[in-house]
């Protein structure tokens, strides 16, 4: 089938602002959007810039706004989109070129929540024991691939880039609810601050955007409750 691919492009060396470019691509229904981008880059215009790596939804490189929704280009098939497809960079992060955005603000928020196990007790000779139920408690957050789909779909983040954003909160959740962790109070400083969880307006965009089906909004709510109950 013939697909019309409209890509919002921006070359910092030439352009004042992004402009739409249209390409005609021959595609199969089971092609990924990533395949179409490759067809443009490899056959029509080598200057098109986008990120990708694994090609099957587990590295998080190719989050983009596809037909108005944040998705991974490698996990979105032509058959689910029809024959006119629009592709734009994810929103709320500075565009560097075409579909490539500056990820540094995103990773700064990630680092701010101390996304690592905090436990100064000397570890046992064997593994720390954890029941299957305790392990299950934080399973959702462990699926996160840091693709930024959630954070860059969040209206609060678009308006205020200092908001930590859903992805960082998911990372915090993953440790707060890990029975082996002792660092929740340290994390609550950032999470309970003005740029933390209370900025969330429960818009559910993050949950809809997550390509890993993490119930992001629910996890944010659980972190809010954890902070509340910890305080009172």
């Amino acid at each position, binding site marked *: 089938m013939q697909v019309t691919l409209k890509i919002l492009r921006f070359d910092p060396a030439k352009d004042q602002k992004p402009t739409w470019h249209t390409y005609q691509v021959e595609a199969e229904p*089971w092609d990924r959007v990533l395949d179409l981008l490759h067809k443009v880059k490899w056959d029509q215009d080598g200057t098109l810039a986008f990120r990708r*790596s694994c090609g099957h939804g*587990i590295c998080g490189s190719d989050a983009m706004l596809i037909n108005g929704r944040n998705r991974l280009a490698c996990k979105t098939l032509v058959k689910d989109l029809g024959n006119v497809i629009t592709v734009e960079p994810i929103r709320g992060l500075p565009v560097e070129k075409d579909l490539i955005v500056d990820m540094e603000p995103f990773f700064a928020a990630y680092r701010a929540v101390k996304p*690592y196990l905090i436990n100064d007790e000397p570890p046992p000779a064997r593994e*720390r024991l954890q*029941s299957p139920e305790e*392990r299950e408690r934080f399973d959702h957050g*462990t699926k996160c691939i840091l693709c930024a789909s959630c954070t860059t779909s969040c209206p609060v983040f678009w308006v205020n880039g200092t908001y930590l954003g859903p992805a960082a909160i998911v990372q915090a959740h993953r440790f707060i609810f890990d029975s082996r962790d002792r660092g929740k109070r340290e994390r609550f400083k950032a999470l309970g601050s003005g740029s933390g969880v209370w900025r969330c307006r429960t818009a559910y965009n993050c949950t809809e955007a997550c390509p890993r089906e993490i119930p992001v909004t629910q996890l944010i709510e659980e972190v809010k409750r954890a902070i509340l109950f910890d305080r009172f």
Partner: protein
Amino acid sequence: MAHRHEVIVVGAGGAGLATALYAAREGADVAVITKLYPTRSHTGAAQGGIGAALGNVEEDHWEWHMFDTVKGGDYLTDQDAAEVFAKEVIEAVLELEHMGLPFDRLPSGKIAQRRFGGHTKDWGKAPVHRAAHAADRTGHMILQTLYQQCVKHNITFYNEFHVTDVIVEDGVAKGLVAYELATGELHLFQAKAIVIASGGFGRIYKVTSNAYTLTGDLQAILYRKGLPLEDMEFYQFHPTGLYPLGILLTEGARGEGGILRNALGERFMERYAPTIKDLAPRDMVSRAMYLEVREGRGVGPKKDHVLLDLTHLPPEVIEKKLPDITEFSRIYLGVDPLKEPVPVMPTAHYAMGGVPTTLWGQVIRDENNTVVPGLYAAGEAACVSLHGANRLGTNSLGDLVVFGRRAGIHAARFAKDADYHELTEEHLGESRKRIEHLKNSTGKEKVAVLRAELQQSMMDHASVFRTGELLAKQVEILKELMDRYRNISIDDKGDAYNTELVEALELGYLLEVSEALVHSALNRTESRGAHAREDYPERDDANWLKHTLAYKVEDGKVTFRYKPVVLGRFEPKARTY
């Protein structure tokens, strides 16, 4: 721009991050250069588990793990490496758990373990539960956990920097040159110790489980400099790639009870490996699948694949223990593994060969194990020869933590007593020339066209089965492709995020590693592990129980030296399961 760090690691996959972390714990100033962002490395695609004789589910011993590794490697495995590995991987898994890795758990609270190909109890008698796992995203969890620890230790990251040169002068490693994707600027890095942990090169083949970015960059750079690549002829095809894309479906699916079937519905592995059937090592299963197809028992309109049947497993096992592969199958094929079998075919997966090293990750330059001071390698990019002629499933994740840790510790200690080397702008020259050539060329050849020809021809002539005739043909094709590569031109002349330039550089690396692989395969006139020569179907220990070191002379010309296999407690024997 110039930078200096005591230890610089190239690559931010599991091996690179483990190396960086342990070097930092030794007190070194550590930086990591990665062409991606750290959590986007391909370790994240590893699914099934990390093998270690924890004995949490049933009796197990590191000696059994060592034996399985040596036998799985068709006795080309260096037994000193296998011994170090089988012992230390137990501690490494426990350390990962202490770092917070969310392994699945048994009711007792201990780490859960599942069965995997080639892992047995009692010296090959029956499959054993050895693979510690976190659903079917164990690699993802290892990558995330190691990166989390690197954040905790404030390790410096140079993200989206492509290494274009390793400076080795007077036999000593002195630094690196890297191209910054965001700006197009070349950077000079001074280091006391350099660790190559840049992963594999599955993109030489058309059907592969590997990321687009796995192009053998650093192997090719060192090979061009006259350093050897070891055992490149041994390239693993994973039996269950999702047909026709090649996306990996973990061996853990068979570990949980999945069965391979041909068009007649037969469990054909019963014929090839009666004791452990579908859990035979990957080289054997891949060959069996090809043979079934060749004998007309393939599935589908082209009769060119087989089926992975999970439909007899309890739905909760599939949903809980194999959620990711279930999703891949549903999304990419519209096949629900709960209800119908999944089409699969072998997919290019893992390089057993690479940059030769000692047990501490030191890169060696010859058969006498002469070390290149300051240069280290770990993970898939390296060849410590743990995997020999065929790697067992789960041993790559074990390899990268065990030998990443060792390389990190040794590099940090080496750096303590070493000095920085003087580097000048002139060291950028070679890289600058290469990039300017690609940007200014008016040649008519296109990167995508050449790459597609390379990948198809490697698939046709140098994949699961090989013959002297086909390999010789591929030698000629590679020579021609290398000639045409000189006439590559690109559209993008810009500096910011010139990803087309990067793809052009990567194609050069793909051609180099293909050359090393094909010449090594043509040279080895026997069948062993993943290297199956139809014109030499037998293993030939009298002549070939040795490692290949391939050296580049010029394009299309390769010379060889040989290193004895380190034998030990296990005598080479016929390999049956």
